[in-house]
């Protein structure tokens, strides 16, 4: 087991930086996710750690040792690919035994360790089958067994669940977590799925345009995203640029005016007056009530009137798109109650639920020019 230190790593393809100055540390035995949209450099980062591509700048250390001079076949890493990359002309047994045979492990021990690995990943007795005779989920498990049987210092996973159907994906998520806990192998997992990253990781590294946009444990990144981009990627539906108004008030809130609108929202936070921020609130934190319904409680601050523009039923709730004249764009809110399209509603944004986020430089295209 080893930790992985990625420091200021850059990779250029022609005149485009696929990865630029990426740094993070994956502690021994931890599960780190690289999360981001396609083209953000997460897979390139993984390939640089594996040694499939040479980095242009920076350094990768595994167990404290720089590995940049080592070819992939001397790094002792387990890699699981999105398409599994099983050797089609080899049986399951030969696929899993491949790494052990390259290491000149004696026959008896090879058979034992292959059986162990197949057992670990929960495969039934399929050792003499060929990959094409297996289901996607089974191929996935073979790929895991093949990567783990060599007892790698680090396990690298490149979107391993994205080719599975939803039900199997949820199942394999638990399996991955169990296997990682049982083996204790330091794992780096590339994904574009925030739910996968949240459920599996000890640490999430959110990437954008070849750089790290934020890195934190799942709970921290969920509750306090580092920037508007990170919040957007972690499913904060409502994001509005704003400017902090006068000094902090007695109740511990600041008044933030939403740019390009008349709305002023009170937020439980402290920021110097005049700061440019992005206000963010998740749809489920927005309370929706019938318009003109005075209810039992005082509206307090942050009450907005709006009209239902559209709604979608998602089973556990209804998601509303509400036009608020006071805001520059529609607001997304979740509620249990049904409101037809065109209905007047009153929205309440609790000051404690609104996050004040650091604005990002405007995103454009993939990668940055040097």
């Amino acid at each position: 087991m080893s930790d992985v230190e990625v420091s200021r790593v850059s990779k250029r393809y022609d005149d485009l930086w696929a990865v630029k100055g990426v740094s993070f540390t994956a502690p021994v035995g931890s599960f780190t996710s690289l999360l981001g949209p396609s083209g953000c450099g997460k897979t390139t980062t993984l390939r640089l750690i594996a040694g499939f591509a040479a980095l242009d700048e920076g350094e990768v250390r595994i167990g404290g040792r720089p590995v940049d001079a080592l070819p992939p076949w001397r790094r002792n890493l387990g890699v699981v690919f999105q398409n599994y990359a099983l050797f089609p002309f080899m049986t399951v047994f030969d696929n899993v035994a491949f790494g052990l045979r390259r290491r000149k492990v004696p026959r008896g021990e090879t058979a034992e360790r292959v059986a162990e690995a197949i057992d670990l990943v929960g495969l039934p007795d399929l050792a003499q089958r060929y990959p094409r005779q297996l289901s996607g989920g089974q191929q996935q498990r073979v790929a895991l067994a093949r990567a783990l049987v060599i007892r790698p210092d680090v396990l690298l996973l490149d979107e391993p669940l994205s080719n599975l159907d939803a039900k199997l994906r949820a199942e394999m998520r638990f399996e991955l977590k169990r296997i990682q806990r049982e083996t204790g192998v330091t794992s780096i997992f590339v994904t574009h799925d925030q739910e996968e990253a949240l459920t599996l990781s000890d640490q999430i590294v959110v990437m954008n345009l070849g750089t790290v946009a934020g890195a934190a444990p799942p709970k921290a990144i969920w509750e306090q995203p580092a920037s508007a981009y990170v919040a957007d990627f972690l499913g904060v539906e409502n994001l509005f640029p704003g400017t902090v108004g006068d000094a902090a008030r007695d109740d511990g809130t600041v008044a933030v005016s939403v740019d390009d609108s008349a709305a002023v929202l009170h937020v439980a936070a402290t920021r110097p007056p005049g700061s440019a921020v992005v206000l963010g609130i998740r749809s489920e934190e927005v309370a929706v009530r019938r318009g003109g319904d005075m209810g039992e409680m005082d509206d307090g601050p942050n009450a907005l009137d709006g009209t239902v523009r559209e709604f979608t039923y998602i089973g556990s709730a209804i998601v509303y798109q509400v036009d608020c004249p006071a805001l520059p764009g529609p607001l997304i809110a979740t509620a249990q109650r049904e409101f037809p399209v065109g209905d007047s509603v009153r929205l309440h944004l609790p000051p404690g639920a609104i996050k004040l986020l650091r604005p990002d430089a405007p995103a454009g295209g993939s990668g940055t020019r040097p």
Partner: protein
Amino acid sequence: MTAGRAWGGGARFPASLATPVLLAFAVFIVVPCALLLVKGLEPTSAAGDWPDFTNVLGLFDSKIGQQALNRTIRVSLIVTVICLVAGYPVALFIARCAPRWRGLLLAVVIFPFLISAVVRAFGWTVLLGDSGLANKGLIALGLIDRPIALVQNEIGIIVGETHLLMPYMILSLLAVLQRIDPNLRHAAESLGASPVSVFWRIVIPLTLPGLLTGTLLVFSLAMTAFATPFLLGGGRTPILTTLLYDYAFTLFDWRLAASIGIVLLILGILFVTIHRFVSSRGMRSYG
């Protein structure tokens, strides 16, 4: 396979469109083969009955027939091996090139197809002749004192046929090499396989289908080539096809010529059978 089913599935028109060509092929294969058998197995004496194997078997008794048979097999095998060993690195190189270079290199490989075998054979006669570029070069390098015979013998046939058939091998290999998932190589590398090990244990098995197609094409085309061995081999190094030509158009012995045809047919069937057997064993895991 899946694609075929998707195309076929109930649509009648592809079958009816294929019929004329299939029918023509059937007629042009079956009828000549029947004629070949009728003529080649014709009785040698007036009293004999039809299947008379004297001519076919007699071919192996004559010194020239024996030599031609051995040379045909030997040359075809050597050409196949040279095409495989020399063509594989070329195919590998082209497959790993950037796409814009790949097209150019592919054109270079296919270019010989644009020149007729006869013109190419004359070209080789000039290059390989006593005062040709090859001999002059070897003398200049001090490897030989005086010109050696490179043409009008087996060397000439091998050089000419290798040049003629190399594109078939390269294209067959390229077809499978380009389909290899690069992740397979990475997977093998991450598991501790050096590039040499990756080549022998991953790339070679993955290209086996193309390798088998290539050898089948090259061997059968080498065995049945006529113009190239005729022009570069000369009269004293007959192979089965040139001997057949001699019998048919110099001696006007159609019966003897047909019997060589039968031998070539048997050789072809034999090779395809062996090839199919090897393929089915080697590719069991490909499905």
